[in-house]
Structure formats: structure tokens, C-alpha cells
């Protein structure tokens, strides 16, 4: 993203008095993600603040914000309990003061998003430094890990609702570095360029609990389209996600069958395939 960074709405209390002040990491579509600390400065955490959206009708806005914060927290707690790799919930306020929105605090996740990793990789390949580190194999292994993580999440009855490559984190390969987190966001730089590490699913803002094949298939479809639209070069690698997903739990085959229906459903999709 270029140009000056977008203006941010002020944080609600109690974060108005946090010292040092929370650092903004990303401005997503729905929420702002800050790096701050929980209780003591040595305990880093992520703060997800959902400001009210001035474009929306206030009644509709409040209804959506409250519903989303609560369902996100419930889903994360459930994933944690069932052993899906997600950040744990530390604290939340779904109502806020009724004007400025609500927030939720989560455990800090080390690493980079899969999107960042793939974009950086594609750039290096373009510059002709492609075959330096077994990139292809690394991507295939990464896809497999994504397939397994998504499979495990679906197995316990959770659907993500916005499964894009920006919402899948790749943790660092080695043990977490000491003082890996600084409040000025430099921790990003300290993580290696590799493809190793553990997959952590983040941003459950649109997630829900569902056992329906339809919802799970839509999850996979969204991920597939995210690959197609932002990483066209990794589109073939997506087959590996589906392959590992298929073997990851019992109901996976039915979901993949359903995925074919979902693909055909977009309006005016070519009938020839």
C-alpha cells in the first residue's frame, strides 16, 4: 500500500491511557489490529478493535458489531479447547460505550501471513532468484500444512467465513526469539524468509459454528478464490491444500464434493466449466 497511512479512529477507554500506547499493525476491513500488552508490559497481546462504521445505520451497526465480537470470541474459545491452532482470548467488551464500537484482546502470534510470504516469494522469483532454496517444494509443504489446519478446524465444527491468505499466519521455524516483540512493530523483520513454521489461523471475525458441508465448502471456495485473485502463480498449489484436506478428517470428502457445486453456483459462471 502506498501513500500516507489512513487516519485511524481513536481507541476507546481503557486504551486511551495505555503506556506505551498501542501500536497499529493493520487496518483491516472490519477492525483495527493493535499490538499492546496484557496486564504487564512483558506480556504482549493483540487488540482487535471494531470501530463503529459511520457509513452504516447506527442500529444496524451496533447489532452487527456486538454479534461479531461475541461470536468471534466464542469460536476462538472453542477452537482452543479442541486443539485448533488459534490465538486465545484474553478479554473483551462487545458493547463499548454504545458509540465507538467494541474490542477483544487475544494472545500474540509470532510470524508472517501466508500472503506476505507468497508475495515476497513471487517477487524473488521474478527477479530471477527463484531456484535458490527449493521454493516449489516449500510451497507444496506449506499448502499441505494449510490443508491440515483448515481440515482440523472444520472437523471440530468451526467455519472461518473469511479464509484468505491474509488470515493464515506462518509462525517462525525456530523457537520464538527473545524479546521478539517490540512495540514499534519491528518484530516482523526478525522472522526468517523461509516457509517452515506452524500454521496459525487468525481473524475469526466472520466465523461461526457449523457442521454443514455447505458452509465448509464455502470456506474452501473463498480460499481458492483468494489464491486465484492474489497469487495466480500459486493457483496450482491449491490442489495440494485440497489433497491434504481430504485426508485430514472423516467428513472431508463430502465437503470437497460440495465444493464443486459451490464453484458452479456463482452467477453467470460458464456452463462449460
Amino acid at each position, binding site marked *: *500500500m502506498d*501513500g*500516507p*497511512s*489512513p*487516519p485511524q*479512529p481513536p481507541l476507546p477507554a481503557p486504551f486511551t491511557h495505555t503506556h506505551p500506547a498501542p501500536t497499529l499493525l493493520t*487496518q*483491516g*476491513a*472490519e477492525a483495527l489490529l493493535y499490538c499492546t500488552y496484557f496486564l504487564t508490559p512483558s506480556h504482549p497481546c493483540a487488540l482487535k478493535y471494531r470501530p463503529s*462504521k*459511520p*457509513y*452504516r*445505520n447506527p*442500529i*444496524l451497526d451496533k447489532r*452487527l458489531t456486538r454479534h461479531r465480537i461475541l461470536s468471534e470470541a466464542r469460536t476462538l474459545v472453542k477452537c482452543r479447547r479442541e486443539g485448533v491452532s488459534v490465538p486465545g482470548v484474553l478479554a473483551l467488551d462487545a458493547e463499548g460505550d454504545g458509540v465507538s464500537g467494541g474490542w477483544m484482546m487475544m494472545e500474540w502470534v509470532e510470524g508472517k501471513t501466508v500472503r506476505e510470504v507468497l508475495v515476497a516469494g513471487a517477487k524473488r522469483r521474478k527477479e530471477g532468484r527463484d531456484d535458490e532454496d527449493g521454493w516449489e517444494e516449500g510451497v507444496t509443504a506449506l499448502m499441505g500444512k494449510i490443508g491440515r489446519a483448515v481440515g482440523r478446524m472444520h472437523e471440530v465444527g468451526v467455519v472461518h*467465513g*473469511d*479464509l*484468505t491468505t*491474509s488470515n493464515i499466519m506462518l509462525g517462525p521455524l525456530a523457537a520464538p526469539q527473545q524479546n521478539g516483540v517490540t512495540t514499534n512493530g519491528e518484530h516482523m523483520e526478525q522472522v526468517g524468509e523461509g516457509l517452515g513454521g506452524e500454521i496459525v489461523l487468525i481473524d475469526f471475525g*466472520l466465523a461461526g459454528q457449523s457442521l454443514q458441508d455447505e458452509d465448509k465448502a*464455502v*470456506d474452501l*471456495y*473463498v480460499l481458492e*478464490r*483468494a489464491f*486465484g*485473485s*492474489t497469487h*495466480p502463480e500459486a493457483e496450482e498449489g491449491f490442489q495440494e491444500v485440497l489433497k491434504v484436506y481430504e485426508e485430514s478428517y472423516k467428513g472431508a470428502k463430502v465437503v470437497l464434493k460440495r465444493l464443486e457445486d459451490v464453484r458452479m*453456483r*456463482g*452467477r*453467470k*459462471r*460458464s*456452463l462449460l466449466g
Partner: protein
Amino acid sequence: MISLGLEGSANKLGVGLIQHPKSGGPAAILSNIRHTFVSPPGEGFLPKDTAKHHRSHVIRLVKQAIKEAGVKVEDIDCISYTRGPGMGAPLQSVAIAARTLALLWNKSLVGVNHCIGHIEMGREITGASNPVVLYVSGGNTQVIAYASQRYRIFGEALDIAVGNCLDRFARTLRISNDPAPGYNIEQMAKKGGCLVDLPYAVKGMDCSFSGILASIDILAEKLEKRKGEGEKGWRDEGTGELVTREDLCFSLQETVFAMLVEITERAMAHVGSRQVLIVGGVGSNERLQEMMGIMARDRGGSVFATDERFCIDNGIMIAHAGLLAYRTGEVTRLEDSTCTQRFRTDEVFVKWRD
């Protein structure tokens, strides 16, 4: 270079002439005229009546467009026409007109994707270089971003288009279709203010409108039934005010537009763009433009929208997109000059962009 564009994928018949200067620079719009088939209140436009409308007006419109442009037939380089997507019968009648003109005047034909026409015209008029595009009309609802020579669809309607949802609710209320049902709903919504509860159906990056339409149709029926009760009629729980038809239009707009702005914002966050371009007939709705403007401003960006001349289906956008393709050497041979109801935005190879 000059291109004549013919558009007739739905109930508007449009003819336009555009000129791209040899030296580059902005395109010159020589003429852009349109004739709309308006159906009676409570009814939609049927394919066969719409096709008949197009057939009976196309000759007059072409003559008028050329006269207004002040060019001679010899000056025209190519005839661009809408290849799809759209309604079959209207598309066919316009394709026949395009083929006839091409044979009569010995010109090249260029078949154009209707959605690409909207996007390229919007970019040309507003000067937005690489925006996330929200294409909203009676037949299409898509969030589009450009990558590697294709306009890629990020999110879209899973069932009916947003404009179709609005049009059909106008039919339920038996509002006039003149100048357009959506426009009349917009005017009524300005007088409403109480928000009734409707489903909010965003699914991944996509949205769904048919359930919302079914819900609001039920509410309209409830309102009609309790109309006779006067003061004891249906009151809003929050405000205690009597619910009106205007409130229903207001609630429908607020809900569906919030969904559209939300998926657009998500696409912007994902591709890292700060520009939004709204195209298509629903894009001329001022409330949608306002909501999108607030969202874009809060992200430090801006919204680009055009007025009804370019938002609503028109011939000039087909002429423009056709000429862009023609300049890269693309020509549709007579035997390939078909039309199709299904023609996805991402099927087109965009040769004219980097």
C-alpha cells in the same frame, strides 16, 4: 480513431460514438444517446417486448448519434456491440443491427463484454487508475480487482443481483418504473427513517439478496394488512412511530448497501487499494455513493462515481471498450459475431493494460 458502440443487453438501447486521439490523451465523447423501454408499474420488462423495443428504435438512434457526433460514416473505424452478458432476445436484436451496419459500411466488428464496458468507461471518465470496482446493476453484482491482465471477481451475488432485488420490491409496492424503479425507491427512502429488521447476508466475499427480498415482501404484506387499523397499526419497537412504505424502502437500501460497502471494503483491504470505482445502474444511487464515500474516506482513500449518463447502460462505454480492444488488433469476425447470456468478466483477456 472512432468507434460506434451499440448496447442493448437489458431494457436500455444505447448508441454512442467515441474518439481516441492518435497522440493519446483523454477520449472524446462525440455522442451518447439512449432510449429506455419502460414497463407498467408492478411489471418487469420481458425479453420479447424489450427486443421489439430495441428493433424499432435502433435505426433512428444510430442516425441521430452519427448526426450529433458530426462525423461521416467513412470516419468510423469499428462497430462495437455488446456480446453479453444480458437477456438473450435484446442482445440478439442489437447484434443483428451491429452485423448489418458492419456489412453495409464495410467496417470491422468488435464484440464487447458488457461488464468490461462499464469498468473501462468508469476509469476513463473518473481517471481512477487502479481501483477496486463495485459493479452493481439490475443484472450484476460484482466486486472486481485487476490483476495480471484480467479483471478478477472478488465477490459477487450468489443469487439475484442487488438491482433486481430493488426492482422487484418496487414491483411489490407497485411503484412506477419511470424513469427507473431504483430511482423511485431512492426518493421514497429519503422520506423514511425507521430501520426494520432484515437479514444481513454476507457470505465470505459474496452476498445474497433473495432472502432479503422475501423478508421485505412479507413485511410489505404485513404493512398492507394493518393499514386499515390507523393509529393502532404497526409501530416500530424502538421509536414507537408508525411504520410506512417509505421506512421499508429506507431499511432495504440501508441493509443491502451496507452489505455492498462491506464486501468492497474487504476487497480493498485485501488488495491494498484505496480507490473505489462504482459503476452500473445502482451506482447512480446517491445514498450508496455517500456510504461508499464515508468508507473510502475513513480508509484514507476516495470514491469515484459517474452520473447516470455513464452509470446506467449506454452505448459509449461499449464504443470505448471496443476501441481499446480494436487498437490492440482485436477484431470479431462476422461468423464469430455471436452473443451470449453468460459471459463472465474474468473471461476477457485485457490486452490493453499492463
